[in-house]
């Protein structure tokens, strides 16, 4: 009588879809708003690239490379918003209302149970759009006679691997943040925090490496809260702004990304378990 984690996950996915579909207009509006955000984002950078040919001298982030980067950001954003965002928010709410009780009663890993119940399907189109942007920019880039893009299908697994690492890091950050609600009683900073940090990971890390303040930001968001590697490493795999083979520091950073994913997952689990020990279960 072991629980089937896959079946539980699929039931969550299915129930969320049924639920989203039953509020049809809401679902459509959510899709429309997230897609229009992506389109405006795209337009903004199109305008910026009318003024300059690359972001940062010698960084290699020219227009097509950057749009691969942007597509990657959309893909990760959409993964996080589809699978984790609503759940992390819901978790804070479960703590505040005392409804976490039910999750604690179930004979299944509690962190798993609170991590996936709501899957926000309306955020997925954004990711598909991101994948489209990546493919389109890759084609543009490979047609560019000035560039010597080395691509084969072997790059796809590497890209997906680092996207997965990125998603794991983002997931861990969110779980840690929402777990703090157990001690704080209430934590409504999730969206705000998400907005702040995604502001940083939406750009190539080279833009930070010019000044003292920039380096401080780069160091913090690479080694303390490792969100810069979330978008930068997978995007580099495809866009190759500095060409191939990778420089030593690029390889080191890639290895670090995998390590950071494992470490942040372990850390998030630790914080989660510590937090559960302090759970008070509000009211009757």
């Amino acid at each position, binding site marked *: *009588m072991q629980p089937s984690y896959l079946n539980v996950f699929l039931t969550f996915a299915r129930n969320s879809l049924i639920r989203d579909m039953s509020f049809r207009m809401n679902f459509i509006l959510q899709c429309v708003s997230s897609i229009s955000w992506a389109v405006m984002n795209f337009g903004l950078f199109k305008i910026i690239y009318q003024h300059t040919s690359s972001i940062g001298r010698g960084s290699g982030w020219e227009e097509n490379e950057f749009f691969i980067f942007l597509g990657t950001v959309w893909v990760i954003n959409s993964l996080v918003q589809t699978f984790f965002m609503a759940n992390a928010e819901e978790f804070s709410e479960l703590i505040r209302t005392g409804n976490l009780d039910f999750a604690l*009663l179930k004979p299944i890993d509690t962190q798993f149970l609170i991590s996936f119940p709501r899957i926000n399907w309306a955020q997925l189109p954004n990711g598909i759009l991101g994948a489209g942007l990546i493919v389109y920019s890759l084609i543009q880039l490979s047609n560019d006679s000035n560039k010597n893009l080395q691509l084969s299908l072997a790059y796809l697994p590497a890209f997906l691997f680092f996207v997965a690492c990125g998603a794991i890091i983002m997931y861990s950050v969110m779980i840690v943040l929402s777990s703090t609600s157990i001690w704080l009683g209430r934590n409504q900073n999730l969206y705000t925090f998400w907005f702040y940090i995604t502001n940083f990971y939406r750009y190539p890390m080279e833009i930070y490496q010019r000044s003292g303040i920039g380096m401080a930001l780069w160091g913090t968001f690479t080694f303390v809260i490792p969100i810069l590697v979330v978008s930068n490493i997978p995007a580099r795999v495809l866009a190759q702004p500095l060409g191939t083979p990778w420089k030593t520091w690029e390889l080191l950073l890639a290895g670090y990304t995998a390590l950071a994913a494992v470490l942040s997952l372990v850390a998030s689990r630790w914080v989660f378990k510590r937090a559960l020990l302090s759970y008070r279960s509000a009211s009757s």
Partner: protein
Amino acid sequence: MRLWPLYTEAMPAIEIKNLCKSYRVYQKQEGILASVRGLFHREYKEVHAVRDIDLTVDDGEFVAFLGPNGAGKTTTLKLLSGVINPDSGTCQVLGHVPWHRENEYRRRFSLVMGQKNQLWWDLPAQESFRLNQHIYGVPREEFDRTRDELTDMLDVTRLLGQPVRELSLGERMKMELIAALLHKPDVLFLDEPTIGLDVVAQHKIQQFLKAYQQERRTTILLTSHYMKDIEALCKRVVIIANGAIYHDGSLEDIVDRFSGEKIVTLQMTDGRSVDALKNLPGLVEIEAPKIKFRVDRDDVGRTLSDILASHSVDDIVVEEPPLEEVISNVFSEAERDRVRDQSAADQSTSTGVS
């Protein structure tokens, strides 16, 4: 098939020793200034929700937890289901320590809370049931059979496909019960399962619980404020007040211990006798030719023979006072004890200081 560990046959289903749990509660004064002060300096009060509880429940028992609001009933149930950790004391349910939250334990019990719901609000109950099937790893055929039996017993089969938010409170509670029973728990904790329900729904749930418990011999702990629930279901009643066990015994014991009186109703043959008796001590009401009064348990025989010697009586009914009344007396007595203890404690501290 049930996989009983061998030792549980000999062991009680639930064994609690010296269990304590207290909360620190923020004491906020009224007003905006106090709120600002609260940002810098906060005063907390220690609330002893559960104080040194000892309790043993045998396999297959149906025990009621009675107590005023805030007495510690729900906290005890939460400790027993491992939702919260105690400050001190030990507890074993089916051989497991609840707050270790082992999956082997969690597969064998259920908690139903009348004030909270575990079903997906926007989806039909059957979707939540299916989710529980996967979480508890119940084989499909067995699951479908149990579900059909339960929905049939509670008469909600036709509502399985309706979103939970469109169910009435009574219907939703029945669905909550089903969700909690689909994995056939050996121990069931029910925290006010009939709260807010109308009499028909209450009765239906009582009947169901009774039949279900008789058939499966599930160990059940029930808290409720409805005496009807308790009269209908539980032989043993545990009264909790101020976080401690105040009484543990049968319902009859409670009435014997806490109510020194009986209620006597006489139907007199003529109005003159009613007039003659209207100054009777302990008079409750007169509805000629009926007269109702209270009398000390020990004096019932003597009082009645006195009356019968000088008046003509058509009918005599001697009853226990209503259970609600007895229980409310118990609660007030417990409250008086608490206030006394508190002031004694305060006095000893103040003497200590001076």
